[in-house]
């Protein structure tokens, strides 16, 4: 029977080509508009490190001003002071912790013809790579002792290694940065978590830094922060050391806490650290420390752009309009075939067989609409890429994967079937032979 209904469906679609095309187009365009935005939303709100997102925690302590909270209603600062980051890092050495900040460095390549160029570098501690599961192409992270001994070692990104050494194994090579010489100990494989969850201060979807070097070395050589710096208390022009001792926040801190017990222990550790600092006259606010796992952190930091949320809402309504359109057209189609239907019913067709017939027809339209929708989604994403051609990171947001393709078809078919329900029900409730009287 299914094949027979399929044939009937195809015939009926072919009998009204303009109308069927309009229905397919309406569903296709609705799906296309909706899925374009959904795809971007899906990428933006993706989990960048699903295997560990439950046990990695961003750390916040409320070192802010006594007069105003960092952010309403009573949010602790999103970064840390140097004093607290290093204080917690040292005091909590039985926890796996990472502290870091972003800095700009100038790479001076060897050879007269190679011009110096600026890159972003991340000053961090050795566990960064293990904690965030950063893949290595060559070599390995630096050791804990390199951190303490302030060894001038670096880990290069794949792209920078390509640029400086043509992609060869560069372990042991020296790289000159702002007049300081560093030894390469590792080269990363391709690594680009989206969003860049471990530091959401500047560009949420940007590239990771191009090189990594020990936090202790960066501070010893007075590297400034290239990220955001916020201060609530003046510290004057006392140079780098005054900055380090200031109440300015500019450092990101994460901890890996695999069990609930560890998480509790870490919370207590934070509270006791702050309580102790209070006796030294710092931390004028009430205890307000927080650890947030990756997904909570992305939520707090509102990584999904408001514009995308707005567009998602409007695109969903757009799909609603397209579906209303389809319902209306299907209904009109059924009404026009009232005579056929009542004749078929009079000849013995059951309600359920009529139902299957019309639902299959709607399903066909849904599938066609879905296929068109995928094509339009692809076009829509190209269009958005085009609008933002100056922004490199947008290319990472407009990628369609199989999940999205399948969801598009599924959404199309479900929408078409939902749209078909009422018209089909109307068709099934036409009484047999009711329309035959006048003939």
């Amino acid at each position: 029977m299914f094949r027979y209904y399929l044939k009937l469906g195809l015939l009926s679609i072919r009998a009204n080509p303009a109308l069927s095309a309009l229905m397919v187009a309406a569903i296709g365009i609705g799906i296309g508009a909706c899925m374009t935005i959904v795809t971007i939303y899906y990428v933006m709100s993706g989990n960048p490190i699903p295997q560990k997102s439950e046990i990695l925690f961003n750390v916040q302590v409320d070192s802010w001003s006594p007069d105003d909270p960092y952010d309403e209603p009573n949010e602790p600062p999103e970064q840390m002071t140097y004093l607290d980051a290093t204080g917690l890092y040292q005091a909590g050495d039985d926890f796996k912790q990472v502290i870091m900040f972003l800095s700009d460095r100038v790479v001076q390549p060897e050879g007269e013809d190679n011009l110096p160029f600026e890159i972003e570098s991340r000053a961090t501690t050795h566990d960064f790579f293990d904690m965030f599961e950063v893949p290595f192409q060559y070599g390995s992270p630096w050791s804990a002792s390199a951190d303490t001994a302030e060894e001038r070692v670096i880990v290069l990104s794949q792209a920078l290694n390509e640029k400086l050494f043509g992609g060869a194994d560069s372990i042991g090579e020296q790289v000159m940065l702002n007049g300081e010489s560093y030894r390469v100990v590792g080269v990363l494989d391709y690594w680009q978590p989206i969003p860049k969850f471990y530091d959401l201060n500047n560009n949420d979807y940007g590239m990771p830094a191009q090189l990594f070097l020990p936090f202790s070395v960066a501070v010893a050589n007075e590297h400034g922060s290239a990220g955001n710096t916020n201060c609530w208390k003046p510290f004057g022009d006392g140079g780098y050391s005054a900055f380090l001792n200031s109440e300015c926040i500019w450092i990101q801190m994460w901890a890996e806490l695999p069990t609930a017990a560890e998480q509790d222990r870490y919370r207590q550790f934070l509270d006791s650290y702050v309580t102790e600092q209070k006796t030294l006259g710092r931390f004028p606010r009430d205890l307000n420390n927080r650890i947030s796992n990756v997904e909570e952190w992305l939520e707090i930091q509102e990584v999904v752009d408001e514009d995308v949320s707005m567009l998602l809402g409007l695109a969903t309504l757009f799909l609603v309009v397209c579906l209303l359109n389809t319902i209306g057209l299907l209904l009109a189609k059924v009404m026009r075939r009232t005579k056929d239907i009542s004749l078929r019913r009079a000849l013995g067709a059951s309600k359920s067989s009529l139902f299957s017939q019309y639902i299959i027809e709607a399903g066909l339209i849904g599938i066609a609409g879905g296929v068109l929708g995928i094509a339009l989604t692809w076009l829509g994403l190209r269009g958005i890429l085009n609008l933002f051609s100056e922004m490199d990171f947008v290319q990472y947001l407009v990628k369609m994967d199989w999940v999205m393709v399948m969801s598009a078809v599924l959404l199309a078919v479900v929408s078409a079937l939902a749209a078909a329900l009422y018209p089909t029900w109307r068709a099934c409730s036409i009484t047999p032979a009711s329309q035959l009287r006048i003939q």
Partner: protein
Amino acid sequence: MEFGPIWRSLLRNKAGYVLIALQIAVTMAIMVNAVAIMQERANDMARPSGVDEDNIFTFASIAFVPDTNMRALIDEDLDLIRNTPGVIDVIATNSFPLRQGGWSMGLTLEPGAGQESVGTAIYFSDEHAVNTYGTRLIDGKDFDPTQITWNEESVSKWAPAGIITEALGKALFPDEQGSYVGKTVYINENDPVKIVGVVDRLQAPWKGWDIVEHSMLVPQRRDGEFQRYVVRTEPGSRDELMPVIEEMLANSSKDRIIQQMRTMTEVRHRSYLGDSAMIKMLMFIVTLLTVITGLGIVGLASFSVSRRTRQIGIRRALGATKPAVVRYFMLENFMISTVGIVAGGILAVALNMFMVNAFGLRPLSWYVIPSAMLILWIVGQLAVAGPARRASEISPAIATRSS
């Protein structure tokens, strides 16, 4: 007019017409709110930055050799650029309007901690700042060369003078009718800053800041390795001067790199890229939506005509003129549209109230809803015109045939 009969006939076949009305209602809700967003973005983009955007370019200079004598390098750069024919003026500063990155501070009226403060952007520069940005001094005086200092680690006090924007003055002294010049405000809790001048407009570097019109010029130069230069040229010579100056500076010192060489026009474009893209996307969505709704009306009206072929024939046979048949369908569409548009108006306002709450959108302008109503009425009438004309072509002889 045949309102009564048409209305009763609509009620006999509700479902199809309710669907069109609903479609028009949702279309209208989307249209109105999309236009509200577009308007908001367009207004933001139309705000002047206060600088002479057409004739300014900027770049960054990054010294990377340790212990470079920054003060000497900056002075040399400024001299070189200022003496280039076609250049009006130049400054080394920390930021400029629309750059999306900069320095902000709070100003208070009284010294001491815990005071209510007014936020402002800070531009460190010298006596050439007003001339270089191309902003207009409306009160007081420009900086005097003797006021300009370099930052010193030993002196932790803030520079004691400042030129503020008029908007900042108004925020600091809301009740002041006269001049802001000569008044003292406090920065860093206790450091006094005397207002020496007022400029009409100079935006903060962040276009999305709610106090984007607040900024202050500070008569201090800072000798960090990272410097931003702002160059103002004679009208028309900006584009040819950019490569000349880039090359000149690259040759003058090998101990630094020059990058982010951008015209102010490009800076503005980058800054508002998201907004202009949003406007284009919404424009596209609204157009597409209107077309789809229009096509839906065409489809349904065609159906309704072909279903009523016999009735129309009978009406014609009974003496209805062609225009009367056209009028019937036009009027019918007008009535359906009106129901949809009224429902759409309510839906649009509800959606707007939600968006104002959730996304901080500004409330609707009064004329958006009436305009959307008018557009949708016209779209409906245009969409139904074709089928209505075809209906009027139906021959009265149809009435005599049995289908």
